């Protein structure tokens, strides 16, 4: 499986993402600059964390109009898995590929620490390697991770089982319904604030994030690899 890590001016978790895919997962991966004209040769698209365009105006607001985003929307419509982590999640929200918006953390502090997450849904292409209800440890690092959506949207997310991850124990940023990650209606776009790519080796304190990437590959193999 071949992954693209989209690099915007100001991305800073692109290297972590690349490392997770290449060294820990053992799959192919390329860095793709934000002005790229095609993502056709990639099977999975990763939007890394960081501060695209300096987070000027709002997190993700300017990145959403990058040239590569037209291609990303095409990839989304083609059903390819698209994962946005942290700033990547913010970009997906700004692009309208996921519903809702991000506010500053309730505490107004930048938070950077491991948090406990509950895997609410394991019947997605991103979480099939987890048990339903499994509690995992993944680090967060953000100042604007306070997810918000209106009551009707929240109801839809619940009814369609799209709240994939919730914070367990304490909610670090004040997000509505303890939401840490959601998928789109088709189930192929996941946005999450915690960083699974920073939890792929026990050396980093946790390898609970690796199963997320393994789930994606597993799903892709099941639907694409033809038995010889």
């Amino acid at each position, binding site marked *: 499986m071949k992954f693209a890590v989209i690099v915007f001016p100001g991305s800073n978790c692109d290297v972590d993402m690349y490392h997770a895919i290449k060294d820990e997962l053992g799959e192919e991966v390329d860095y793709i600059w934000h002005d790229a004209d095609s993502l056709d040769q990639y099977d999975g698209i990763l939007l890394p964390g960081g501060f695209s365009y300096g987070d000027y*105006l*709002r997190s993700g*607001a300017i990145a959403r109009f990058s040239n590569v985003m037209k291609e990303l929307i095409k990839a989304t419509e083609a059903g390819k898995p698209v994962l946005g982590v942290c700033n990547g999640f913010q970009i997906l929200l*700004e692009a309208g590929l996921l519903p*809702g918006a991000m*506010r500053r953390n*309730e505490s*107004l502090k930048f938070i950077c620490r491991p948090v406990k997450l509950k895997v609410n849904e394991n019947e997605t292409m991103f979480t099939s390697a987890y048990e339903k209800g499994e509690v995992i440890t993944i680090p967060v690092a953000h100042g604007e991770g306070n997810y918000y*959506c209106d009551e009707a949207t929240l109801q839809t997310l619940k009814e369609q089982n799209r709240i994939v991850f919730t914070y367990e124990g304490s909610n670090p940023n*004040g997000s509505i319904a303890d939401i840490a990650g959601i998928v789109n209606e088709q189930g192929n776009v996941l946005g999450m604030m915690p960083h699974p790519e920073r939890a792929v080796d026990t050396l980093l304190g946790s390898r609970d994030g690796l199963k997320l990437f393994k789930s994606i590959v597993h799903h892709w193999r099941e639907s694409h690899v033809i038995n010889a």
Partner: protein
Amino acid sequence: MYKVKVFVTLRESVLDPQGVAVKHSLHSMDYKDVSDVRVGKYMELTIEKTEKDVEEQVKEMCNRLLANPVIEDYRYEIEECVAQ
């Protein structure tokens, strides 16, 4: 030429943590009669002569980029002026 002032604030229904922090600070400075503070953004745009409808264009820019309609409201003032 047009000078456009754009004001963006979080919607009334959305908690504004920065506003709350500023309010608390004002209270601790003894300005107890301040009942609410909303922190927002202020932008100034200069638009050269355009064939398009300026107001239409400003609204479109606000909805697409300058504000996030999911959580933010905006208002604007358009002033026509002569280039110096």
